[in-house]
């Protein structure tokens, strides 16, 4: 039984790490800040969710498992808010650059 749990953990954790790699690839390759925000928050959250799912059978006690899910829930909510905040900052920054470029002759 514990072998099965270890196999499940290994599978899910490696899938999570794969999604992290996809998020980083998105961050490095995508041209526009807004698409990067989208790629980063989505891929990282799925990666984190898979890692937490994979680690649940390894958690020492039920409390540790609940705390892992709490960490994932906070990261989920935080990244939703962070992507909105950073998207607004990106459009604001583009706007500032546009006005600065207009002032220069």
């Amino acid at each position: 039984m514990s072998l099965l749990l270890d196999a499940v953990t290994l599978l899910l954790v490696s899938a999570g790490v794969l999604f992290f790699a996809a998020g980083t690839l998105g961050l490095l390759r995508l041209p526009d800040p807004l698409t990067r925000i989208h790629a980063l928050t989505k891929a990282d959250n799925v990666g984190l969710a898979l890692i937490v799912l994979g680690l649940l059978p390894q958690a020492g006690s039920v409390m540790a498992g609940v705390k892992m899910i709490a960490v994932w829930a906070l990261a989920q909510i935080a990244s939703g808010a962070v992507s909105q905040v950073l998207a607004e900052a990106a459009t604001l920054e583009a706007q500032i650059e546009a006005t600065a470029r207009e002032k220069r002759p």
Partner: protein
Amino acid sequence: MADLLFAAGALVLLICGAGLAALWRGEGDIDRMLAFQLLGSGAIAVLLLIAPAMSEPALLDAALLTALLAALAACAYRAALGGRTPPAPDAPERQP
């Protein structure tokens, strides 16, 4: 099993290192903040991975705190940009 979790944690750290390349090459501040957010969620993943490996539940609290601080950093960055809220999304022909 513990060393496999350590290996996965090391892999996530490597991925965060690759993400830092975006920080080093970052064109604008927004790209640096994004690389920082990647580092934040990568740190959460590493802390979560090595917590059962070292059977140290205190690391879960560190992961919780890292999640909180990463979110606050983004909000601080937005606050530093000043109170101007961008106008309603007009036609997107204005490419930066």
